[in-house]
């Protein structure tokens, strides 16, 4: 699946997007965050406070308990500050 990162999540991880294949035990957005956190220092820094991280599956806001099966694109970003 394709992962997208925005704003300081992108800066801390050091890339805007990547393709990943998480193991089948990774079922939810929250599981995915925990799995990503172990991939390196940048990920651990980006997700150090997972409660404030927002996620979207295929361009729709989702919560941490959302299931990722069938997702084409999952995005992670900080709370939004537009307008």
């Amino acid at each position, binding site marked *: 699946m394709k992962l997208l990162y925005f704003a300081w999540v992108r800066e801390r991880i050091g890339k805007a997007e990547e393709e990943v294949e998480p193991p089948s035990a990774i079922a939810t957005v929250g599981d995915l965050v925990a799995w990503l956190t172990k991939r390196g220092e940048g990920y651990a820094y980006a997700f150090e406070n997972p409660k404030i991280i927002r996620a979207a599956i295929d*361009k729709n806001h989702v919560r941490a308990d959302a299931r990722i099966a069938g997702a084409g694109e999952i995005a992670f970003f900080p709370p939004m500050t537009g*307008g």
Partner: protein
Amino acid sequence: MIATIRLQAEAFDVGAEVEKLTRGRTDIGAVVTFTGICRADEAGEPIAALTLEHYPGMAEAEIARHVEEANARWPLLGVTVIHRHGRIAPGENIVLVVTASSHREAAFAAAAFLMDYLKTRAPFWKQVEQASGRIWVEAKATDDAAAERWSAPPPRRDAAK
């Protein structure tokens, strides 16, 4: 209801957008516009400019979802939402919401609703340039509270045109 949603790097002309929405119409009795403008300070510190990052595709989709929601809640005749991205200097426009209805109540309420949701749900992020460096603007709890007030049951919708 005519809806126009645009994301763009370029500046926009508020008067021209209102004119586009109302030209030739005699059913519109009220137009409300909200314009968000880049200030020269953030959290008490001067800024040289801000840069808006967005999630292409989702930003448009999210705004469209809230325009539909506004149209379901109030009898609107037209909505225009324009949000800029990229580098914006103090004094320049950032965002425009125009709502048109037969009467003012719906136009005022829908404009406030759309702005409250744009702030907290549309995927945009502001970074400001200060003397100390580039800083990501922090989300405000007051913006969340402002969006929260719309989650009460919506008012009954009057007959819309």
